[in-house]
């Protein structure tokens, strides 16, 4: 019997053994209802569960689809990334190797194969450092023990340190190799062929220490070498430093142009090297300045001997593009330890000796002496105040009258420049013109004089001319003609009223260019005079080569008129010759009435000198021009 029914029967059985059917029936019905409820409950819950699971399933399917699509996208992205990565590593300028944590090659790029000229089929993922090195030994790009090298790299990479080194390949190339451990284990190595870079660096280093034009050591290297050499000085040894520059280099540069100037410097550099002993350093320290270190100097005289050799070596003409250019060098010499033990001090002292050498007449040398210091400082002081003078308007002009004795009339005044130095008396040109020429100030000063003189003369009466002196450097300057035109135009002065005086030295620097300039000036109507005639190496050849308007007979002849027949004869000859060539003559340095009478008799067209009038300021010369004729007339 069913266990439940048995219990139901037992429960419905009275103590008498009689079964209470009513009670049994109720229990059975209740049990059926319970079972029905349970079945409904089960059905319902299973139905709901199925729905829910179905829904979940659909959700999962959707999720799987989405994830699959995302995965596909990610795969495509990864593929693209791989392509980009491939492109990146194969277009690197460096060779690249990537090793995994086990020290096996994972990635290498094309450039790596190129750097070591390895065939692509030789290098495969999975190779060890040692395998790679063996391949390189085979093709001759590695010299060394592969086992030892591989061990060293593995140890270093395990330590986590970055490792940089330069590999000098047997074929002469240099490869910079950098190994860098990765956080994930393994390491990356880059190989860069730096042969060209290194040679460029060497070149740059060379350039930093050498002069580009002459390839001689520059000032920096000179100073280093001097410091090195000085380190050995002191235990009885001596050394000499030569400081030298070219005489009149600036003039040459200005006239012949920078290109020929540069050629000259190269020629000089070559000559210096040629005459220098092997252990001597020859350097170009700037412009036309060179220096020589003569180490292990025995006798002082050895320095003098070398200096003489240098001067002789420079003297012969240099053939520069068809121009035979002559230059001289002046040399200043300082001796260590006597004149200093410090590079700067020695060079400064050699420089001072150079100044003295130049002052002594150029083409020569001087040893440094302590008293040079003071005089050179004084000269330096002039230099620096001279540079400021033009800007400060410290130059003034004075005018000296020139008389036509026959007409008893002032026909011309010579403009003479003076420097109104703020702390000194009026300084004459003798004290500063040569300095101005050396430091390149003569051109602006000369320009100023021309403009000022033209402007002043424009206001003079009776067509009185003005005479202006030109230095050789001015004449050689290509700008002279435009400057003259501009000065005349600015002043409104007719060209015929301007006389330009040049000295014989200008004619000595004779070149076609100089002559052309003088001709162009004459074509303008400007008069050209030859100043101080008879003093230089003068030859009548000049007069043939250029048709001067006027000869100014040097004061020495006039001074000697009273004492010597020679001078008398010369002056007469000159005036006669000049007249025959259509030139007028001016007697310079006329200081007495007698001299004036003499030069008049000798046929000089004009006279100039203290007797006629000293150089004087513009206001006074104006007064003189106004008053002269009546006064002279009176006195006559």
């Amino acid at each position, binding site marked *: 019997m069913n266990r439940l029914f048995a*219990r139901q029967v037992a429960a419905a059985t009275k103590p008498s053994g009689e079964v209470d059917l009513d009670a049994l029936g109720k*229990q059975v019905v209740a049990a059926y209802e*319970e079972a029905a409820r349970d079945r*409904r409950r089960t059905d319902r819950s299973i139905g*709901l*569960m199925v729905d*829910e699971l179905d829904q979940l399933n659909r959700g999962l399917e959707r999720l799987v689809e989405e994830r699959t699509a995302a995965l596909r996208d990610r795969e495509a992205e990864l593929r693209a990334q791989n392509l980009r990565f491939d492109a990146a590593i194969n277009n690197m300028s460096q060779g690249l190797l990537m090793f995994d944590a086990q020290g096996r090659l994972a990635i290498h790029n094309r450039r790596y194969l190129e750097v070591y000229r390895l065939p692509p089929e030789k290098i495969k993922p999975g190779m060890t450092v040692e395998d790679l090195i063996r391949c390189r030994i085979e093709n001759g790009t590695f010299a060394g023990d592969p086992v030892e090298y591989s061990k060293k790299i593995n140890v270093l990479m395990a330590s986590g340190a970055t490792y940089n080194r330069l590999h000098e390949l047997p074929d002469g190339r240099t490869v910079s190799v950098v190994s860098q451990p990765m956080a994930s284990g393994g390491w990356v190595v880059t190989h860069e062929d730096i042969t060209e870079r290194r040679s460029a660096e060497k070149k740059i280093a060379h350039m930093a220490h050498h002069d580009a034009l002459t390839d001689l050591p520059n000032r920096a290297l000179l100073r280093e070498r001097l410091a090195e050499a000085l380190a050995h000085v002191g235990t009885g040894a001596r050394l000499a430093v030569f400081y030298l520059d070219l005489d009149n280099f600036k003039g040459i540069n200005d006239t012949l142009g920078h290109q020929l100037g540069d050629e000259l410097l190269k020629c000089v550099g070559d000559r210096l090297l040629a005459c220098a002993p092997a252990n001597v350093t020859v350097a170009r320290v700037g412009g036309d300045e060179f220096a020589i270190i003569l180490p292990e100097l025995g006798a002082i005289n050895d320095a003098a001997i070398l200096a003489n050799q240098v001067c002789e070596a420079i003297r012969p003409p240099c053939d520069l593009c068809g121009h035979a250019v002559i230059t001289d060098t002046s040399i200043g010499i300082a001796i260590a330890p006597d004149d200093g033990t410090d590079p700067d001090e020695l060079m400064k002292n050699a420089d001072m000796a150079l100044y003295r050498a130049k002052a002594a007449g150029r083409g020569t040398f001087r040893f440094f002496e302590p008293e040079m210091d003071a005089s050179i400082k004084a000269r330096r002081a002039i230099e620096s105040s001279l540079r400021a003078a033009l800007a400060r308007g410290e130059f003034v002009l004075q005018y000296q009258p020139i008389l036509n004795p026959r007409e008893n009339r002032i026909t011309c005044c010579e403009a003479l420049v003076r420097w109104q130095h703020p702390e000194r008396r009026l300084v004459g040109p003798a004290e500063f013109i040569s300095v101005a020429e050396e430091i390149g100030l003569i051109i602006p000063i000369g320009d100023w004089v021309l403009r000022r003189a033209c402007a002043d003369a424009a206001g003079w009466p009776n067509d009185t001319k003005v005479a202006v002196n030109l230095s050789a450097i001015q004449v050689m300057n290509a700008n002279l003609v435009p400057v003259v035109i501009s000065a005349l135009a600015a002043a409104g002065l007719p060209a015929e009223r301007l006389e330009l005086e040049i000295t014989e030295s200008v004619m000595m620097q004779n070149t076609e260019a100089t002559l052309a300039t003088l001709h162009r000036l004459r074509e303008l109507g400007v008069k050209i005079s030859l100043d101080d005639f008879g003093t230089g190496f003068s030859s009548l050849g000049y007069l043939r080569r250029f048709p001067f308007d006027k000869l100014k007979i040097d004061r020495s002849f006039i001074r000697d008129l009273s004492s010597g027949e020679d001078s008398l004869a010369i002056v007469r000859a000159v005036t006669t010759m000049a007249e025959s060539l259509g030139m007028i003559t001016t007697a310079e340095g006329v200081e007495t009435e007698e001299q004036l009478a003499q030069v008049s008799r000798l046929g000089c067209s004009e006279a100039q000198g203290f007797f006629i009038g000293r150089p004087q300021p513009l206001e006074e010369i104006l007064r003189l021009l106004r008053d002269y004729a009546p006064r002279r007339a009176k006195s006559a």
Partner: protein
Amino acid sequence: MRVEQLSWRQGAGWRGGRNVADKADLLLYFGTRAALACGARYGEMRAMFPGAHIFGCSTGGQIRNNDVTDDDVVAVALSFARTRLKLACAPAADATQSRAAGETIGRELAADDLAGVFVLSDGLNVNGSALVAGLAAAVGDGVSITGGLAGDGAQFEETLVGGDCAPSKHNVAAVGFYGSAVRIGHGSAGGWDEFGPRRRITRSQGNVLYELDGEPALDLYKRYLGEEADGLPGTALLFPLRIRDPRCPDESDLVRTVLAVDHDARSMTFAGDMPEGWVSQLMRGNFDRLAAGAADAARQASGGTRESGDGVAILVSCIGRRLLMGQHAMDEVAAAGGEFDPRMARLGFYSYGEISPHNRSGVCQLHNQTMTVTAITEAAGSRP
């Protein structure tokens, strides 16, 4: 150890128990609320057993040997030879005082030779998880805590617990067993089957569950109960909820049963905590497998007391099981009984929550929808 069963029935009064009346140390009883509420039963028991601790509660049905009954009181008088007992009580006005009540009782019972604790608690106003946690914390590891939450049939209105006093609501009582002679075996098993999808507890507070997978929990239950939703909260017991912590699913595996529902808040109050983030799954019962579960629990418990014949097996089974099984409830009681020596007295009750160490973790916990069995015997020896 001597054991004698007795019972009370309306009209028939008390039967049995006369043999050990004056020697009994403990009288354990379970009865319907209707029979116990007036206090008369306690008076009668006290009169019969003046020297014993009288300890019991209201139920959702009494178990006596192979029978399941309503409308009566079942009891067992226990006389120990070498085991000392101590009874402790604490009030629990509401769920928030549960842990404190557990701690109070635990402190009172704690002793070096405390072998085990059997606890009965108000079934509606106490958070069983918190109560057990407080109790376990006070008595320490290694002391088995078993017992259950009192029941109120399928009414869920009022539950009563009494310890040496007339049973009342808002009460927790426990008896401690001391000494080395007492043997306490325990077992717990469900036999329920999970079904349907797993759902995450997305909103809860203590033992109040608001949402599963973002959906109000009560909606889900109503959908599954269909026409039986009218019987809430009782009918919710037909679908217990298995919960586990996804971080340690084996150690945290628990079954929870519903105590109350709030139709406005669409929330459900369970007999224990419903931690947020835990995973839950609905369960449903199959009569045979529930009965097999009960047998499993009994087997676990009897394993500890097989050596001695006399003793008592206290069966605490969930009211949900009875609601589902109906007349088949007796099948599980009989299945459990089959695992014991026939000399073992068996009694127990249908509860609103079962208390027992967790099968795998060994941590004492509140269970639901289980059959929990506590077997008490005493090692052979004469009474001192």
